[in-house]
């Protein structure tokens, strides 16, 4: 157990190192003079300002030293200050992180909570026209563009319930009801593919479990069908369900970037898109690094929990 954990930890560190190298190299791969391009968003520059920015970004040092400096301060949570607003990059990321986390969390909860009954239903009605219809529905849910769904929902809502405040963002701590009201539509738009994906997973895991000996035994013992399905099969179905939730988080982040744009939510997506328009490379770098690292660590923790839960993996 400990040895496996240690090996995983080593993997984690290697991956994090690799991620940081790729993100670090990104800015160096930009064709042309990165500093000049960054300053392009400002209309008047002097050689002094160029040199200052060069120093600030650290492009005037040997590349290994640049990396060590950058990664070193990054480890201490210091990503420098944003080029134009002068705010610390870490603060910028933190401010924009919460709305995205909340959106991701709500979408995951909505998707996961609904996926269990929908998946069970799909497994029970397997075969026949209903099954096919449900599968097609699930695939449609998976492939519907969430940004499009968002726009359509805003338009429909504006004609059905014109006074429902659905746009923008207020922090939960300021106004819990207003916060949830505004988060409702974007989380649904984002949750639909999750629901489709997870319910399919529940369905196939349930079918899998229903074929297992112990369910057959239970059924043979005369236990009622419903209790068989829920008690035995569902418990087994939940393990792959949990692992795929980890993978879903990555999808959700991507979806959130686009959905935030539609619903005017000041999250990471808006931060990084704004940074691209301004060519604020240090901010883009730091955001990608922080989010990816967070993502890797979450997946590691999910793996770790999984190991605790399911002893078979330990071997």
């Amino acid at each position: 157990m400990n040895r496996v954990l240690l090996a995983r930890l080593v993997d984690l560190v290697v991956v994090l190192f690799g991620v940081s190298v790729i993100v670090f190299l990104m800015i160096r791969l930009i064709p042309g003079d990165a500093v000049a391009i960054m300053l392009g968003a400002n209309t008047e520059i002097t050689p002094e300002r160029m040199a200052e920015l060069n120093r600030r970004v650290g492009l005037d040092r040997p590349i290994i030293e640049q990396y060590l400096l950058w990664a070193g301060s990054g480890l201490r949570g210091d990503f420098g200050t944003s080029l134009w607003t002068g705010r610390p990059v870490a603060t910028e990321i933190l401010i924009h992180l919460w709305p995205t986390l909340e959106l991701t969390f709500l979408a995951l909860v909505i998707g996961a909570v609904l996926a269990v009954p929908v998946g069970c239903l799909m497994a029970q009605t397997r075969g026949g026209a209903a099954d096919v219809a449900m599968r097609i529905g699930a695939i449609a849910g998976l492939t519907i563009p969430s940004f499009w769904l968002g726009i359509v929902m805003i338009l429909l809502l504006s004609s059905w319930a014109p006074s429902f405040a659905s746009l923008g963002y207020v922090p939960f701590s300021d106004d819990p009801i207003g916060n949830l009201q505004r988060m409702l539509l974007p989380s649904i738009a984002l949750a639909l593919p999750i629901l489709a994906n997870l319910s399919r997973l529940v369905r196939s895991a349930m079918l899998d479990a229903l074929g297992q000996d112990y369910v057959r035994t239970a059924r043979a013992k005369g236990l009622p069908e419903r209790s068989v399905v829920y008690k035995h099969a569902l418990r087994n179905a939940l393990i792959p369900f949990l692992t795929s939730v980890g993978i879903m988080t990555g999808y959700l982040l991507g979806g959130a970037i686009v959905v935030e744009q539609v619903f005017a939510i000041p999250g990471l997506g808006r931060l990084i898109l704004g940074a691209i328009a301004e060519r604020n490379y240090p901010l883009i770098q730091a955001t990608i690094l922080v989010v990816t690292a967070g993502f890797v660590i979450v997946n590691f923790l999910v793996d770790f929990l999984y190991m605790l839960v399911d002893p078979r993996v330990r071997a």
Partner: protein
Amino acid sequence: MKSLAKNKLLTFAVLLVAIQLILAFGAPLLAPYDPMAQSVARRLRGPTELNWLGTDQLGRDVLTRILYGYRTSLIACVLAVGIALFAGGTLGLMAAYYRGWLDRIVMRIMDVLFAFPVMLLAIGIIAVLGPHTFSAATAIAVVYTPIFARLLRGPALVLCESEFVAGAKAIGASDARIIFLHILPNLASVILVQTSLLLSAAILVEASLSFLGLGTQPPTPSLGLMLSEGRNFLMLSPWSAIFAGFAILFLSFGFNLLGDALRDTLDPRLRGQS
């Protein structure tokens, strides 16, 4: 009975994809108008006899632009997934065949690439390359490479241990011959299923990137771009945005259904169950 239903589903999926492929690559022959031809007097109309799906903000025919948009999306995504398949597949097979340090290094690099959330890495790549269809395709290719490498390495490892590979080695077949003639054909079903599913996902990623202004640029017809342009005129005429949205949905849906039905038909493990 059940397998018949499954085959029906597969047939339906194949038909759906085939129709869309014909529409896309036959666009120059099938489209009623020139995709660039503007007609301000007829702009932002709903469906009419002249323009079956209406017109966009510059009076261009929505149906024509959707057909050409299919082509743009498909070319970008097929190219991207194809490159990912080639690169990831080659790396995954080599890692499985040669094992040792090559395996370790290649798979660690793949782990690193796999760690990035797809859209985030794509946005990072576009930040470097600039907004363009080509950049979006490159981003998709890079992001999907580790998926193929990881997918193929596992089953390839099992195959490498098998007797027929040992036999081939014994009669002195070259490494390349073994990899491409003995191992690869056995992975065809896995590849087919995954390629189809990833194409479906790639279409959504390309549309999202174009929607954000980071992918295909005007005046090139693109589904994500049409949606993005149309959303500025939703209250005047929602048609181009609505139809572009459906087009994205159908295209992505077709490939996903195809992958799903193929998996059911080809995957022996699932076949045994039904």
